[in-house]
Protein backbone atom coordinates (compact mmCIF):
# COMPACT_ATOMS: atom_id res chain seq x y z
CA UNK A 1 0.00 0.00 0.00
CA UNK A 2 1.08 3.60 -0.43
CA UNK A 3 3.47 5.34 1.92
CA UNK A 4 1.88 7.12 4.85
CA UNK A 5 -1.18 4.85 4.92
CA UNK A 6 -1.90 2.90 8.13
CA UNK A 7 -3.48 -0.53 8.14
CA UNK A 8 -6.47 -0.74 10.52
CA UNK A 9 -7.84 -4.15 9.60
CA UNK A 10 -7.62 -6.77 6.84
CA UNK A 11 -9.40 -4.55 4.32
CA UNK A 12 -9.42 -1.22 6.13
CA UNK A 13 -6.84 1.54 5.85
CA UNK A 14 -6.40 4.97 7.33
CA UNK A 15 -5.00 8.15 5.84
CA UNK A 16 -3.98 10.05 8.97
CA UNK A 17 -4.57 13.73 9.62
CA UNK A 18 -1.62 15.62 8.20
CA UNK A 19 -1.29 13.54 5.02
CA UNK A 20 -2.64 16.65 3.33
CA UNK A 21 -2.54 20.06 5.04
CA UNK A 22 -5.77 21.10 6.68
CA UNK A 23 -7.36 17.67 7.21
CA UNK A 24 -9.96 17.91 9.97
CA UNK A 25 -10.54 14.16 10.32
CA UNK A 26 -8.69 11.03 9.19
CA UNK A 27 -9.71 9.39 5.96
CA UNK A 28 -10.59 5.70 5.84
CA UNK A 29 -10.92 3.43 2.85
CA UNK A 30 -11.80 -0.21 2.33
CA UNK A 31 -9.61 -2.17 -0.06
CA UNK A 32 -7.99 -5.57 -0.47
CA UNK A 33 -4.27 -5.81 -1.14
CA UNK A 34 -5.09 -7.14 -4.59
CA UNK A 35 -7.17 -4.07 -5.43
CA UNK A 36 -4.46 -1.95 -3.82
CA UNK A 37 -2.14 -2.88 -6.71
CA UNK A 38 -4.14 -0.60 -8.98
CA UNK A 39 -4.76 2.17 -6.45
CA UNK A 40 -3.79 5.56 -7.82
CA UNK A 41 -1.98 7.97 -5.47
CA UNK A 42 -4.21 10.69 -6.89
CA UNK A 43 -7.30 8.94 -5.52
CA UNK A 44 -5.87 8.94 -1.98
CA UNK A 45 -4.93 12.60 -2.38
CA UNK A 46 -8.54 13.35 -3.29
CA UNK A 47 -9.84 11.31 -0.35
CA UNK A 48 -7.57 13.31 1.98
CA UNK A 49 -8.65 16.59 0.35
CA UNK A 50 -12.30 15.86 1.23
CA UNK A 51 -11.23 15.52 4.87
CA UNK A 52 -10.34 19.24 4.87
CA UNK A 53 -13.92 20.33 4.22
CA UNK A 54 -15.78 22.18 7.03
CA UNK A 55 -18.21 20.21 9.18
CA UNK A 56 -17.12 16.77 7.97
CA UNK A 57 -18.09 14.08 10.47
CA UNK A 58 -15.89 11.22 11.61
CA UNK A 59 -14.03 10.30 8.38
CA UNK A 60 -13.71 10.99 4.69
CA UNK A 61 -14.53 7.53 3.35
CA UNK A 62 -13.97 5.51 0.20
CA UNK A 63 -15.28 2.17 -0.93
CA UNK A 64 -13.16 -0.58 -2.59
CA UNK A 65 -14.00 0.62 -6.09
CA UNK A 66 -12.12 3.83 -5.29
CA UNK A 67 -10.51 5.58 -8.20
CA UNK A 68 -9.29 8.95 -9.23
CA UNK A 69 -12.16 11.23 -10.15
CA UNK A 70 -12.27 15.00 -9.87
CA UNK A 71 -12.76 16.70 -6.52
CA UNK A 72 -14.06 13.73 -4.53
CA UNK A 73 -12.63 10.35 -5.54
CA UNK A 74 -15.08 7.98 -7.22
CA UNK A 75 -16.25 5.65 -4.45
CA UNK A 76 -16.21 8.55 -2.00
CA UNK A 77 -18.60 9.02 0.91
CA UNK A 78 -18.65 11.98 3.29
CA UNK A 79 -21.21 13.17 5.83
CA UNK A 80 -21.47 16.77 7.01
CA UNK A 81 -23.05 18.41 10.00
CA UNK A 82 -26.18 20.36 8.98
CA UNK A 83 -25.19 23.49 10.93
CA UNK A 84 -21.41 23.57 10.53
CA UNK A 85 -21.05 21.59 7.35
CA UNK A 86 -21.03 22.19 3.61
CA UNK A 87 -22.67 20.76 0.53
CA UNK A 88 -20.60 20.26 -2.61
CA UNK A 89 -21.62 19.36 -6.19
CA UNK A 90 -18.20 17.69 -6.55
CA UNK A 91 -19.35 15.21 -3.92
CA UNK A 92 -22.25 14.21 -6.16
CA UNK A 93 -20.86 14.53 -9.67
CA UNK A 94 -22.15 15.86 -12.97
CA UNK A 95 -24.45 12.89 -13.43
CA UNK A 96 -26.76 13.50 -10.50
CA UNK A 97 -28.51 10.27 -9.50
CA UNK A 98 -26.63 8.14 -11.91
CA UNK A 99 -28.02 4.90 -10.57
CA UNK A 100 -29.09 1.42 -11.36
CA UNK A 101 -32.21 -0.73 -11.14
CA UNK A 102 -32.96 -4.40 -11.57
CA UNK A 103 -36.12 -6.03 -12.94
CA UNK A 104 -36.86 -9.73 -12.86
CA UNK A 105 -38.73 -11.61 -15.56
CA UNK A 106 -40.39 -15.05 -15.74
CA UNK A 107 -37.95 -15.99 -18.53
CA UNK A 108 -35.02 -18.37 -18.14
CA UNK A 109 -31.70 -18.34 -19.93
CA UNK A 110 -32.69 -20.67 -22.78
CA UNK A 111 -35.65 -18.41 -23.62
CA UNK A 112 -33.33 -15.64 -24.77
CA UNK A 113 -30.22 -17.53 -25.89
CA UNK A 114 -29.36 -16.44 -29.43
CA UNK A 115 -32.17 -13.87 -29.46
CA UNK A 116 -30.16 -11.08 -31.06
CA UNK A 117 -33.44 -9.71 -32.34
CA UNK A 118 -34.31 -8.84 -28.72
CA UNK A 119 -31.10 -6.84 -28.32
CA UNK A 120 -31.69 -5.12 -31.68
CA UNK A 121 -35.26 -4.24 -30.67
CA UNK A 122 -34.09 -2.84 -27.33
CA UNK A 123 -31.39 -0.84 -29.12
CA UNK A 124 -33.97 0.72 -31.43
CA UNK A 125 -36.60 1.12 -28.72
CA UNK A 126 -34.48 2.87 -26.08
CA UNK A 127 -32.80 6.03 -27.43
CA UNK A 128 -29.08 5.49 -26.82
CA UNK A 129 -25.82 7.36 -27.35
CA UNK A 130 -24.81 10.85 -28.44
CA UNK A 131 -27.61 12.92 -29.95
CA UNK A 132 -30.36 10.48 -29.03
CA UNK A 133 -33.73 12.10 -28.40
CA UNK A 134 -36.80 10.80 -26.66
CA UNK A 135 -40.00 9.84 -28.48
CA UNK A 136 -41.81 11.41 -25.54
CA UNK A 137 -42.69 15.11 -25.84
CA UNK A 138 -43.13 16.85 -22.50
CA UNK A 139 -44.14 20.45 -21.94
CA UNK A 140 -42.26 22.77 -19.59
CA UNK A 141 -45.02 22.27 -17.03
CA UNK A 142 -44.75 18.50 -17.27
CA UNK A 143 -40.99 18.71 -16.86
CA UNK A 144 -41.50 20.66 -13.63
CA UNK A 145 -43.83 17.92 -12.43
CA UNK A 146 -41.25 15.27 -13.38
CA UNK A 147 -38.72 17.12 -11.27
CA UNK A 148 -41.05 17.25 -8.27
CA UNK A 149 -42.61 13.79 -8.49
CA UNK A 150 -39.81 11.76 -10.08
CA UNK A 151 -40.73 8.15 -10.78
CA UNK A 152 -44.18 8.84 -9.30
CA UNK A 153 -44.88 11.18 -12.25
CA UNK A 154 -44.07 8.36 -14.66
CA UNK A 155 -46.20 5.79 -12.80
CA UNK A 156 -49.16 8.20 -12.61
CA UNK A 157 -48.78 8.82 -16.36
CA UNK A 158 -49.13 5.08 -16.99
CA UNK A 159 -45.46 4.14 -17.32
CA UNK A 160 -45.32 1.72 -14.42
CA UNK A 161 -47.03 0.49 -11.29
CA UNK A 162 -47.22 1.33 -7.61
CA UNK A 163 -44.76 -1.41 -6.65
CA UNK A 164 -42.12 0.35 -8.79
CA UNK A 165 -42.22 3.20 -6.28
CA UNK A 166 -42.17 0.95 -3.22
CA UNK A 167 -39.04 -0.76 -4.55
CA UNK A 168 -37.18 2.46 -5.30
CA UNK A 169 -34.82 4.45 -3.08
CA UNK A 170 -36.78 7.42 -1.67
CA UNK A 171 -39.97 6.00 -3.18
CA UNK A 172 -38.72 7.38 -6.51
CA UNK A 173 -38.57 11.04 -5.53
CA UNK A 174 -36.86 13.34 -3.05
CA UNK A 175 -39.31 15.74 -1.42
CA UNK A 176 -36.67 18.48 -1.17
CA UNK A 177 -36.76 19.03 -4.97
CA UNK A 178 -37.08 22.65 -6.05
CA UNK A 179 -37.45 23.07 -9.83
CA UNK A 180 -37.20 26.85 -9.40
CA UNK A 181 -33.48 26.35 -8.72
CA UNK A 182 -33.06 24.48 -12.01
CA UNK A 183 -32.02 26.91 -14.77
CA UNK A 184 -33.84 27.44 -18.05
CA UNK A 185 -30.79 25.96 -19.77
CA UNK A 186 -31.00 22.74 -17.75
CA UNK A 187 -34.71 22.48 -18.50
CA UNK A 188 -34.03 22.98 -22.21
CA UNK A 189 -31.67 20.01 -22.07
CA UNK A 190 -34.08 17.91 -20.04
CA UNK A 191 -37.18 18.30 -22.20
CA UNK A 192 -36.09 16.09 -25.13
CA UNK A 193 -34.20 13.47 -23.10
CA UNK A 194 -36.78 11.70 -20.93
CA UNK A 195 -36.36 7.95 -21.43
CA UNK A 196 -32.93 8.10 -23.04
CA UNK A 197 -29.98 5.99 -21.94
CA UNK A 198 -27.00 8.26 -22.58
CA UNK A 199 -23.51 6.92 -23.23
CA UNK A 200 -20.18 6.22 -21.49
CA UNK A 201 -20.74 3.48 -18.92
CA UNK A 202 -24.54 3.60 -19.18
CA UNK A 203 -26.24 0.42 -20.33
CA UNK A 204 -29.29 -1.79 -20.38
CA UNK A 205 -28.28 -5.39 -19.84
CA UNK A 206 -30.04 -8.75 -19.79
CA UNK A 207 -28.58 -11.06 -17.17
CA UNK A 208 -29.19 -14.46 -15.66
CA UNK A 209 -29.11 -15.27 -11.94
CA UNK A 210 -26.19 -17.71 -11.89
CA UNK A 211 -25.74 -18.17 -8.16
CA UNK A 212 -27.74 -17.59 -4.97
CA UNK A 213 -25.65 -16.93 -1.85
CA UNK A 214 -28.46 -16.08 0.55
CA UNK A 215 -31.70 -17.97 -0.08
CA UNK A 216 -33.77 -16.05 2.48
CA UNK A 217 -32.83 -12.69 1.04
CA UNK A 218 -33.16 -13.95 -2.54
CA UNK A 219 -36.70 -15.12 -1.77
CA UNK A 220 -37.56 -11.75 -0.25
CA UNK A 221 -36.10 -9.90 -3.28
CA UNK A 222 -37.82 -12.26 -5.76
CA UNK A 223 -34.65 -13.77 -7.26
CA UNK A 224 -34.38 -17.40 -8.39
CA UNK A 225 -31.56 -19.32 -10.07
CA UNK A 226 -31.52 -19.26 -13.88
CA UNK A 227 -34.00 -16.37 -13.94
CA UNK A 228 -33.48 -13.69 -16.60
CA UNK A 229 -33.23 -10.15 -15.23
CA UNK A 230 -32.81 -6.73 -16.77
CA UNK A 231 -30.44 -4.14 -15.33
CA UNK A 232 -30.74 -0.47 -16.30
CA UNK A 233 -27.90 1.95 -15.52
CA UNK A 234 -28.23 5.66 -16.31
CA UNK A 235 -28.76 9.08 -14.71
CA UNK A 236 -30.20 12.55 -15.05
CA UNK A 237 -28.93 13.22 -18.56
CA UNK A 238 -28.22 16.74 -19.77
CA UNK A 239 -30.55 18.26 -17.17
CA UNK A 240 -28.47 16.99 -14.26
CA UNK A 241 -25.20 17.77 -16.02
CA UNK A 242 -26.28 21.38 -16.54
CA UNK A 243 -27.49 21.73 -12.94
CA UNK A 244 -24.05 20.65 -11.75
CA UNK A 245 -22.29 23.06 -14.14
CA UNK A 246 -24.58 25.96 -13.16
CA UNK A 247 -24.31 25.45 -9.42
CA UNK A 248 -20.58 24.74 -9.46
CA UNK A 249 -20.14 28.22 -10.86
CA UNK A 250 -22.29 29.76 -8.12
CA UNK A 251 -20.60 27.75 -5.39
CA UNK A 252 -17.15 28.69 -6.68
CA UNK A 253 -17.99 32.26 -5.82
CA UNK A 254 -19.67 31.21 -2.57
CA UNK A 255 -16.54 29.33 -1.46
CA UNK A 256 -14.60 32.58 -1.64
CA UNK A 257 -17.34 34.65 0.01
CA UNK A 258 -17.65 32.23 2.93
CA UNK A 259 -13.84 32.11 3.13
CA UNK A 260 -13.67 28.35 2.82
CA UNK A 261 -10.15 27.20 2.03
CA UNK A 262 -10.05 24.22 -0.32
CA UNK A 263 -7.14 22.26 -1.83
CA UNK A 264 -9.11 21.67 -5.07
CA UNK A 265 -11.44 24.03 -6.90
CA UNK A 266 -13.74 21.14 -7.81
CA UNK A 267 -14.61 20.83 -4.10
CA UNK A 268 -16.43 24.20 -4.39
CA UNK A 269 -19.07 24.28 -1.68
CA UNK A 270 -21.20 26.41 0.60
CA UNK A 271 -22.70 25.92 4.05
CA UNK A 272 -25.67 23.57 3.74
CA UNK A 273 -27.88 26.15 5.47
CA UNK A 274 -26.79 29.02 3.19
CA UNK A 275 -29.00 30.27 0.31
CA UNK A 276 -26.47 28.89 -2.19
CA UNK A 277 -26.29 25.54 -0.40
CA UNK A 278 -30.07 25.23 -0.22
CA UNK A 279 -30.42 26.26 -3.87
CA UNK A 280 -28.03 23.54 -4.98
CA UNK A 281 -29.69 20.91 -2.82
CA UNK A 282 -33.12 21.79 -4.23
CA UNK A 283 -31.82 21.66 -7.80
CA UNK A 284 -29.90 18.45 -7.13
CA UNK A 285 -33.00 16.77 -5.70
CA UNK A 286 -35.02 17.93 -8.73
CA UNK A 287 -32.39 16.41 -11.02
CA UNK A 288 -32.39 13.19 -9.00
CA UNK A 289 -36.14 13.01 -9.49
CA UNK A 290 -35.74 13.51 -13.22
CA UNK A 291 -33.29 10.58 -13.24
CA UNK A 292 -35.80 8.35 -11.42
CA UNK A 293 -38.47 9.36 -13.90
CA UNK A 294 -35.99 8.59 -16.69
CA UNK A 295 -35.22 5.09 -15.38
CA UNK A 296 -38.94 4.48 -14.95
CA UNK A 297 -39.61 5.45 -18.58
CA UNK A 298 -36.86 3.11 -19.78
CA UNK A 299 -38.32 0.37 -17.56
CA UNK A 300 -41.69 0.83 -19.24
CA UNK A 301 -40.20 0.68 -22.75
CA UNK A 302 -38.28 -2.46 -21.82
CA UNK A 303 -41.37 -4.12 -20.37
CA UNK A 304 -43.39 -3.34 -23.51
CA UNK A 305 -40.71 -4.89 -25.71
CA UNK A 306 -40.41 -8.06 -23.58
CA UNK A 307 -44.21 -8.24 -23.30
CA UNK A 308 -44.61 -8.21 -27.07
CA UNK A 309 -41.78 -10.62 -27.85
CA UNK A 310 -42.49 -13.19 -25.13
CA UNK A 311 -46.21 -12.71 -24.36
CA UNK A 312 -45.59 -11.91 -20.69
CA UNK A 313 -47.38 -9.43 -18.48
CA UNK A 314 -45.99 -6.25 -16.85
CA UNK A 315 -46.75 -7.75 -13.45
CA UNK A 316 -44.41 -10.62 -14.26
CA UNK A 317 -41.51 -8.16 -14.52
CA UNK A 318 -41.38 -6.53 -11.09
CA UNK A 319 -38.68 -4.18 -9.91
CA UNK A 320 -36.27 -5.66 -7.35
CA UNK A 321 -34.88 -2.24 -6.39
CA UNK A 322 -33.46 1.04 -7.70
CA UNK A 323 -30.45 2.72 -6.11
CA UNK A 324 -28.73 6.04 -6.68
CA UNK A 325 -24.97 6.21 -6.63
CA UNK A 326 -24.29 9.93 -7.19
CA UNK A 327 -26.37 11.91 -4.72
CA UNK A 328 -26.46 13.94 -1.50
CA UNK A 329 -29.12 13.10 1.07
CA UNK A 330 -30.26 14.33 4.45
CA UNK A 331 -30.30 11.17 6.56
CA UNK A 332 -30.41 10.29 10.23
CA UNK A 333 -27.37 8.45 11.56
CA UNK A 334 -25.86 7.61 14.93
CA UNK A 335 -22.97 9.93 15.65
CA UNK A 336 -21.21 9.56 19.02
CA UNK A 337 -24.19 7.65 20.33
CA UNK A 338 -26.78 10.25 19.31
CA UNK A 339 -29.21 10.17 16.36
CA UNK A 340 -28.30 13.15 14.21
CA UNK A 341 -29.43 14.40 10.80
CA UNK A 342 -26.46 14.77 8.47
CA UNK A 343 -25.88 15.48 4.79
CA UNK A 344 -24.36 12.34 3.25
CA UNK A 345 -22.60 12.73 -0.10
CA UNK A 346 -22.19 9.56 -2.15
CA UNK A 347 -20.05 9.99 -5.25
CA UNK A 348 -19.96 6.58 -6.92
CA UNK A 349 -21.22 4.83 -3.81
CA UNK A 350 -24.51 3.11 -2.99
CA UNK A 351 -26.81 3.38 -0.02
CA UNK A 352 -26.74 0.16 2.00
CA UNK A 353 -29.34 0.52 4.73
CA UNK A 354 -29.50 -2.28 7.24
CA UNK A 355 -32.54 -4.21 8.51
CA UNK A 356 -35.28 -2.19 10.22
CA UNK A 357 -34.05 1.15 8.87
CA UNK A 358 -36.66 3.68 7.74
CA UNK A 359 -37.15 4.09 3.97
CA UNK A 360 -36.67 0.45 3.12
CA UNK A 361 -39.83 -1.40 2.01
CA UNK A 362 -41.75 -3.04 4.88
CA UNK A 363 -41.57 -6.47 3.23
CA UNK A 364 -37.77 -6.24 3.17
CA UNK A 365 -37.35 -4.78 6.63
CA UNK A 366 -35.99 -7.93 8.24
CA UNK A 367 -33.55 -8.53 5.38
CA UNK A 368 -32.16 -5.06 4.66
CA UNK A 369 -32.14 -2.83 1.60
CA UNK A 370 -31.29 -4.46 -1.76
CA UNK A 371 -27.98 -3.22 -3.12
CA UNK A 372 -27.49 -3.54 -6.88
CA UNK A 373 -23.86 -3.60 -8.05
CA UNK A 374 -23.35 -3.59 -11.83
CA UNK A 375 -20.30 -5.27 -13.30
CA UNK A 376 -19.36 -4.48 -16.88
CA UNK A 377 -19.92 -6.20 -20.24
CA UNK A 378 -18.69 -9.75 -19.79
CA UNK A 379 -18.27 -9.59 -16.01
CA UNK A 380 -20.84 -10.44 -13.34
CA UNK A 381 -23.15 -8.05 -11.52
CA UNK A 382 -24.26 -8.67 -7.96
CA UNK A 383 -27.20 -8.17 -5.65
CA UNK A 384 -26.37 -7.66 -2.00
CA UNK A 385 -28.27 -6.54 1.09
CA UNK A 386 -27.60 -3.64 3.41
CA UNK A 387 -26.37 -4.13 6.95
CA UNK A 388 -26.29 -2.50 10.36
CA UNK A 389 -22.48 -2.59 10.07
CA UNK A 390 -22.74 -0.17 7.15
CA UNK A 391 -24.94 2.07 9.30
CA UNK A 392 -22.21 2.12 11.98
CA UNK A 393 -19.14 2.42 9.77
CA UNK A 394 -19.97 4.19 6.51
CA UNK A 395 -23.20 6.18 7.05
CA UNK A 396 -25.05 3.27 5.46
CA UNK A 397 -22.94 3.10 2.30
CA UNK A 398 -21.18 0.55 0.14
CA UNK A 399 -19.48 0.30 -3.27
CA UNK A 400 -21.27 1.10 -6.54
CA UNK A 401 -19.52 -0.99 -9.18
CA UNK A 402 -16.14 -2.10 -10.27
CA UNK A 403 -14.18 1.08 -10.89
CA UNK A 404 -11.85 1.54 -13.83
CA UNK A 405 -8.16 0.67 -13.94
CA UNK A 406 -7.52 1.75 -17.49
CA UNK A 407 -8.18 5.05 -19.16
CA UNK A 408 -10.27 5.32 -22.29
CA UNK A 409 -7.16 6.33 -24.23
CA UNK A 410 -5.38 3.15 -23.20
CA UNK A 411 -8.51 1.05 -23.78
CA UNK A 412 -8.94 2.31 -27.32
CA UNK A 413 -5.26 1.64 -28.06
CA UNK A 414 -5.34 -1.83 -26.56
CA UNK A 415 -8.72 -3.11 -27.72
CA UNK A 416 -10.80 -2.84 -30.83
CA UNK A 417 -14.55 -2.81 -30.47
CA UNK A 418 -14.76 -5.65 -32.99
CA UNK A 419 -12.33 -7.86 -31.03
CA UNK A 420 -14.13 -7.21 -27.75
CA UNK A 421 -17.47 -8.06 -29.33
CA UNK A 422 -15.97 -11.27 -30.76
CA UNK A 423 -14.62 -12.28 -27.34
CA UNK A 424 -18.00 -11.57 -25.73
CA UNK A 425 -19.82 -13.44 -28.51
CA UNK A 426 -17.70 -16.54 -27.77
CA UNK A 427 -19.05 -16.30 -24.21
CA UNK A 428 -22.57 -16.08 -25.62
CA UNK A 429 -22.87 -12.34 -24.89
CA UNK A 430 -24.23 -10.04 -27.60
CA UNK A 431 -23.77 -6.29 -27.19
CA UNK A 432 -25.00 -3.46 -29.38
CA UNK A 433 -23.69 0.13 -29.27
CA UNK A 434 -23.77 3.14 -31.62
CA UNK A 435 -20.04 2.80 -32.39
CA UNK A 436 -17.10 0.46 -31.82
CA UNK A 437 -15.19 2.84 -29.57
CA UNK A 438 -18.08 2.67 -27.10
CA UNK A 439 -17.44 -1.06 -26.82
CA UNK A 440 -13.62 -0.79 -26.62
CA UNK A 441 -13.90 1.90 -23.90
CA UNK A 442 -15.91 -0.47 -21.76
CA UNK A 443 -14.03 -3.73 -22.39
CA UNK A 444 -14.11 -5.98 -19.31
CA UNK A 445 -10.34 -5.64 -18.70
CA UNK A 446 -10.59 -1.89 -18.15
CA UNK A 447 -12.40 -2.47 -14.89
CA UNK A 448 -11.30 -3.80 -11.54
CA UNK A 449 -12.80 -7.16 -10.82
CA UNK A 450 -16.38 -6.64 -9.65
CA UNK A 451 -16.09 -9.98 -7.87
CA UNK A 452 -13.12 -8.71 -5.84
CA UNK A 453 -14.81 -5.40 -5.00
CA UNK A 454 -17.94 -7.13 -3.67
CA UNK A 455 -15.81 -9.71 -1.84
CA UNK A 456 -14.30 -6.85 0.14
CA UNK A 457 -17.62 -5.19 1.06
CA UNK A 458 -19.02 -8.62 1.97
CA UNK A 459 -16.05 -9.50 4.20
CA UNK A 460 -16.02 -6.09 5.86
CA UNK A 461 -19.79 -6.45 6.27
CA UNK A 462 -20.92 -3.23 4.56
CA UNK A 463 -23.29 -5.25 2.41
CA UNK A 464 -23.75 -9.01 2.16
CA UNK A 465 -23.92 -11.09 -1.00
CA UNK A 466 -27.34 -12.33 -2.10
CA UNK A 467 -26.94 -13.32 -5.76
CA UNK A 468 -24.62 -13.21 -8.75
CA UNK A 469 -25.85 -12.26 -12.20
CA UNK A 470 -24.05 -13.18 -15.41
CA UNK A 471 -24.46 -10.95 -18.48
CA UNK A 472 -26.27 -12.34 -21.52
CA UNK A 473 -26.27 -9.25 -23.68
CA UNK A 474 -27.39 -5.68 -23.85
CA UNK A 475 -27.15 -2.21 -25.25
CA UNK A 476 -24.88 0.63 -24.40
CA UNK A 477 -24.41 4.20 -25.50
Amino acid at each position, binding site marked *: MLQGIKRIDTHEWEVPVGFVAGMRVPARFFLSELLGESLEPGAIQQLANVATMPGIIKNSLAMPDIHWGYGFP*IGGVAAFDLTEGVISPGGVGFDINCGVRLLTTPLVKKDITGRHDLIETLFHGVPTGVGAKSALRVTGQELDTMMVKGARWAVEAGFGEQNDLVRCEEGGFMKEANPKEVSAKAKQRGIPQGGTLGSGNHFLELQVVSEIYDQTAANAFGLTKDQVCCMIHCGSRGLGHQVCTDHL*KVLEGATRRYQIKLPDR*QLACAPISSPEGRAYFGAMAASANYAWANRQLITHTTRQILKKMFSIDDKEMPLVYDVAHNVAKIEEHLVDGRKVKVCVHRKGATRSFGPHTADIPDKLSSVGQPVIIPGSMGTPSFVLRGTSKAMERTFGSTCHGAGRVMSRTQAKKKFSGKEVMAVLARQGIFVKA*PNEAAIADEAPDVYKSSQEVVRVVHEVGLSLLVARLQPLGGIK*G
Partner: protein
Amino acid sequence: MSFIEVSHTADVKIRARAPTLETLFSDACDALMLVMYGSSRKGTIKKEITITSADIDSLLLDFLSEVLFVSEVEGMVFSKADVKIDGLNLHAELKGEPFTRKRHAKGTEVKGISYSGLSIRHDANGFMVDILFDV
Protein backbone atom coordinates in the same frame (compact mmCIF):
# COMPACT_ATOMS: atom_id res chain seq x y z
CA MET B 1 -5.03 21.85 -33.97
CA SER B 2 -2.71 21.15 -31.11
CA PHE B 3 -3.85 18.92 -28.30
CA ILE B 4 -3.27 15.40 -27.07
CA GLU B 5 -5.28 13.08 -24.91
CA VAL B 6 -3.58 12.42 -21.58
CA SER B 7 -4.21 9.33 -19.51
CA HIS B 8 -6.98 9.58 -16.91
CA THR B 9 -8.65 6.49 -15.55
CA ALA B 10 -12.28 7.47 -15.46
CA ASP B 11 -12.64 10.46 -17.75
CA VAL B 12 -11.02 12.16 -20.75
CA LYS B 13 -8.15 14.54 -20.11
CA ILE B 14 -6.88 16.82 -22.85
CA ARG B 15 -3.60 18.74 -22.88
CA ALA B 16 -3.73 21.66 -25.26
CA ARG B 17 -0.81 23.86 -26.30
CA ALA B 18 -1.01 26.95 -28.50
CA PRO B 19 1.00 30.04 -29.36
CA THR B 20 -1.77 32.40 -28.28
CA LEU B 21 -4.50 32.33 -25.66
CA GLU B 22 -7.17 32.59 -28.33
CA THR B 23 -5.91 29.61 -30.31
CA LEU B 24 -5.68 27.68 -27.01
CA PHE B 25 -9.41 28.28 -26.50
CA SER B 26 -10.10 27.38 -30.10
CA ASP B 27 -8.13 24.13 -29.83
CA ALA B 28 -9.88 23.23 -26.57
CA CYS B 29 -13.22 23.65 -28.33
CA ASP B 30 -11.99 21.42 -31.15
CA ALA B 31 -10.93 18.79 -28.60
CA LEU B 32 -14.38 18.84 -27.01
CA MET B 33 -16.08 18.40 -30.37
CA LEU B 34 -13.71 15.57 -31.32
CA VAL B 35 -14.48 13.68 -28.10
CA MET B 36 -18.21 14.16 -28.55
CA TYR B 37 -18.65 13.69 -32.29
CA GLY B 38 -15.46 12.38 -33.91
CA SER B 39 -13.45 14.08 -36.62
CA SER B 40 -15.92 14.33 -39.51
CA ARG B 41 -17.30 17.84 -38.99
CA LYS B 42 -18.12 20.50 -41.55
CA GLY B 43 -18.57 24.25 -41.14
CA THR B 44 -21.60 25.38 -43.14
CA ILE B 45 -23.53 27.24 -40.44
CA LYS B 46 -22.35 30.09 -38.19
CA LYS B 47 -23.08 30.57 -34.49
CA GLU B 48 -21.84 33.27 -32.11
CA ILE B 49 -21.09 32.94 -28.41
CA THR B 50 -20.36 35.86 -26.08
CA ILE B 51 -19.45 35.40 -22.41
CA THR B 52 -17.71 37.10 -19.50
CA SER B 53 -16.13 35.39 -16.49
CA ALA B 54 -14.38 36.13 -13.22
CA ASP B 55 -10.95 34.85 -14.29
CA ILE B 56 -9.24 33.38 -17.32
CA ASP B 57 -9.53 29.72 -16.22
CA SER B 58 -13.23 30.18 -15.58
CA LEU B 59 -13.53 31.88 -18.97
CA LEU B 60 -12.24 28.72 -20.64
CA LEU B 61 -14.48 26.46 -18.58
CA ASP B 62 -17.52 28.68 -19.18
CA PHE B 63 -16.77 28.85 -22.91
CA LEU B 64 -16.55 25.07 -23.24
CA SER B 65 -19.67 24.59 -21.09
CA GLU B 66 -21.55 27.00 -23.35
CA VAL B 67 -20.34 25.21 -26.51
CA LEU B 68 -21.53 21.93 -24.96
CA PHE B 69 -24.91 23.45 -24.15
CA VAL B 70 -25.46 25.03 -27.56
CA SER B 71 -24.27 21.91 -29.34
CA GLU B 72 -26.76 19.75 -27.49
CA VAL B 73 -29.87 21.93 -27.52
CA GLU B 74 -29.46 23.18 -31.09
CA GLY B 75 -28.22 19.82 -32.42
CA MET B 76 -25.06 21.46 -33.80
CA VAL B 77 -21.64 19.94 -34.33
CA PHE B 78 -18.85 22.53 -34.56
CA SER B 79 -15.76 22.23 -36.74
CA LYS B 80 -14.05 25.53 -35.99
CA ALA B 81 -14.08 28.30 -33.40
CA ASP B 82 -12.63 31.74 -34.09
CA VAL B 83 -12.11 33.16 -30.61
CA LYS B 84 -11.46 36.76 -29.59
CA ILE B 85 -10.59 37.56 -25.97
CA ASP B 86 -10.51 41.03 -24.48
CA GLY B 87 -9.61 40.87 -20.80
CA LEU B 88 -12.22 38.52 -19.33
CA ASN B 89 -14.66 38.94 -22.22
CA LEU B 90 -14.89 36.40 -24.97
CA HIS B 91 -16.57 36.52 -28.33
CA ALA B 92 -16.43 33.44 -30.56
CA GLU B 93 -17.67 32.77 -34.08
CA LEU B 94 -18.28 29.07 -34.46
CA LYS B 95 -18.75 27.20 -37.71
CA GLY B 96 -20.60 23.90 -37.75
CA GLU B 97 -23.35 21.74 -39.18
CA PRO B 98 -26.47 19.98 -37.92
CA PHE B 99 -25.89 16.70 -36.03
CA THR B 100 -26.46 13.60 -38.14
CA ARG B 101 -26.28 10.10 -36.66
CA LYS B 102 -24.55 8.78 -39.77
CA ARG B 103 -21.44 10.94 -39.38
CA HIS B 104 -21.46 12.23 -35.83
CA ALA B 105 -22.20 9.20 -33.63
CA LYS B 106 -18.57 8.12 -33.24
CA GLY B 107 -17.90 9.88 -29.98
CA THR B 108 -19.18 9.89 -26.43
CA GLU B 109 -21.31 12.32 -24.47
CA VAL B 110 -19.46 14.78 -22.28
CA LYS B 111 -21.32 15.41 -19.02
CA GLY B 112 -19.36 18.43 -17.99
CA ILE B 113 -16.04 20.20 -17.84
CA SER B 114 -14.24 19.98 -14.53
CA TYR B 115 -12.41 22.73 -12.64
CA SER B 116 -10.07 20.07 -11.30
CA GLY B 117 -6.51 20.79 -12.45
CA LEU B 118 -7.69 23.42 -14.90
CA SER B 119 -5.00 26.07 -14.88
CA ILE B 120 -3.83 27.91 -17.98
CA ARG B 121 -0.03 28.23 -17.97
CA HIS B 122 2.00 30.64 -20.04
CA ASP B 123 5.69 30.43 -20.80
CA ALA B 124 8.15 31.23 -23.60
CA ASN B 125 6.65 28.42 -25.73
CA GLY B 126 3.12 29.75 -25.50
CA PHE B 127 0.04 28.66 -23.59
CA MET B 128 -0.87 25.28 -22.14
CA VAL B 129 -3.80 23.81 -20.23
CA ASP B 130 -5.07 20.42 -19.05
CA ILE B 131 -8.84 20.00 -19.20
CA LEU B 132 -10.88 17.15 -17.78
CA PHE B 133 -14.09 16.14 -19.54
CA ASP B 134 -16.43 14.02 -17.45
CA VAL B 135 -17.71 11.26 -19.72
